[in-house]
């Protein structure tokens, strides 16, 4: 059974009326004949947890890749923290303060857990090693600090990816299906880490299929279907929306 002390996700500061940290406007993307995204509008408020859900093929991954610069949109604009990032390369976007994880963990297999974190750190190396160690400690990963990435178990890889995410203190954390293939023990750890981030005032945008968790931790949810936003609101609002049920269960 799930743990009794689930972390809470109240945003540190209520920023509902401030301009959004991330705003996506009219983004479209076509692959061959398939419209992956058809004019998506989305806004992420600072300090909150925003979720994107939708059935398979709804365009969630494409949306993530477009926002983080791995894929180029055909049209539309993306603005992050006051900067238009629509055509930026992924590394440039990351340096502006947006960091992401991947659905299938992408650690550097030939580097140790600690090296995985230090290699992406900008700025002072010495403090990078310290921060890496502190982060690994927080996640109880210190024993595998010097183990190579490709020797880590799936759960450990997921945690190290999480740890690596904050090495440069990003403003926006983009989590791509963080709970995929994860069982209750690991889930609890990931949630704890995320709750701590929210406490620190960080902003999270995530997508996942684990409905129960999404409903529990998101302040705001956007629902995609066939590349369009078909619903948007609080978890309660979205869950009650007929169109959302139809999108998932069929019509």
């Amino acid at each position: 059974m799930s743990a009794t002390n689930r972390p809470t996700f109240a945003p540190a500061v209520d920023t509902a009326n401030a301009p959004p940290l991330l705003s996506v406007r009219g983004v479209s993307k076509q692959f061959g004949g398939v419209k992956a995204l058809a004019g998506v509008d989305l806004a992420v408020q600072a300090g909150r947890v925003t979720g994107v859900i939708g059935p398979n093929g709804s365009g969630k991954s494409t949306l993530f890749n477009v926002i983080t610069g791995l894929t180029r949109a055909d049209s539309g604009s993306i603005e992050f923290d006051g900067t238009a990032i629509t055509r930026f390369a992924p590394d440039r976007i990351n340096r502006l303060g947006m960091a992401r994880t991947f659905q299938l963990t992408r650690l550097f297999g030939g580097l140790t857990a600690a090296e995985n974190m230090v290699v992406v750190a900008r700025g002072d190396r010495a403090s990078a090693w310290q921060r890496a160690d502190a982060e690994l400690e927080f996640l109880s990963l210190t024993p595998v600090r010097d183990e190579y990435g490709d020797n880590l178990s799936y759960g450990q890889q997921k945690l190290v990816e999480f740890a690596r995410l904050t090495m440069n203190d990003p403003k926006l954390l983009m989590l791509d299906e963080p709970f995929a293939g994860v069982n209750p023990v690991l889930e609890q750890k990931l949630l704890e880490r995320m709750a701590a981030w929210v406490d620190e005032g960080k902003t999270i945008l995530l997508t996942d299929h684990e409905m129960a968790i999404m409903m529990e931790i998101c302040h705001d949810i956007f629902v995609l279907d066939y590349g369009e936003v078909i619903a948007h609101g609080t978890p309660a609002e979205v869950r009650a929306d007929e169109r959302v049920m139809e999108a998932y269960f069929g019509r």
Partner: protein
Amino acid sequence: MTGRTPVADQPRPDDSSGVTVSGDGLAATSDVARVKPLPGWERRLPAIYLVLLAIAVAGLLGFPRVANAYNLTLALTVLLTVSLATSWNMISGFAGYTSFGHAGFFGIGSYIGALLIFNETMPWIPAMVTAGVGTSLVALLIGYPTLRLRGPYFAITMLGLSEIARIVVTAWESLTRGGLGVYLPIVRDTRPNYYAMLVLTVVAVVVSYFIGTSAFGLTLRSIRDDEVAAQAMGVHTTRYKIAAFTLSAFFPGAAGAIYARHVGFIDPPTVFAVIWSIRAIATAILGGQGTILGPIVGAVALTLVSEQVWAENPFLYQVLFGGLIVVIVLFLPGGMMELLQRRGWLPRSRRL
């Protein structure tokens, strides 16, 4: 939190990271105790290397005194191959961009050096350095477009560029004397060339060590392991790749210049011959690409063996080297280093 309890029994978590094990090894058992610490002597490697290097250099410096002409040339060849393999390893092993165009750099450097000497523009030592620098500049120029290409495409493109370099050199007769080749003044004494090659090789080895153990090298490895992830984490992948590529081009360039002086005559088919690439690749991967020691060990071992056994037959030579690449890639891509590490005789250390 209702509705999430599975119908069947609870998964049985076996470790703190929360992974369920079932059947055989679908999820790696991740006992905390499994991480093997590096052996004590690994920490002393920098000091060990320094000592070994000093001994080697001392020995190699004294070698000309006891060696006959044949052995001296053999030693020079070994050093040349170490330079080529080690520098190839910088872009291909550490950064993961496998190049089949190392011969192109060798040829370009060879021609720059030879022409500078031929036209009496400068003495041969500066000419050699200029050849290295010049070749690096060429690499810098072609780096931007070519390093955008993915693995196999990059490899083939480099092969093509090497050939193009050969053709350009052949055609540009007014500058290079084309197919006639370049004759350099005969130098009877092999020793200066040998010493020059020794210096170059030592520099290559030291640079390789620093790349392997530095933050720069760590970043290169991350690019090799997963370039997309590295980019997504904010790494300036383009800069790092170009840096490695440019650095890797200096050594074949300078070595080519020394080679030109040593043999006294060069022409395009000789110095742009693909066998120069093949030798670099075969020896580096035999020893273990992506490591510091691998290319050195592979180059020394394979050069000595091949010179004794089959150098007489150039056809056999090329076939065996090419075949060796295929065999290693298929059965032991990490070369001898991987073999030793798998057997536990060597730890998996960045210092090796």
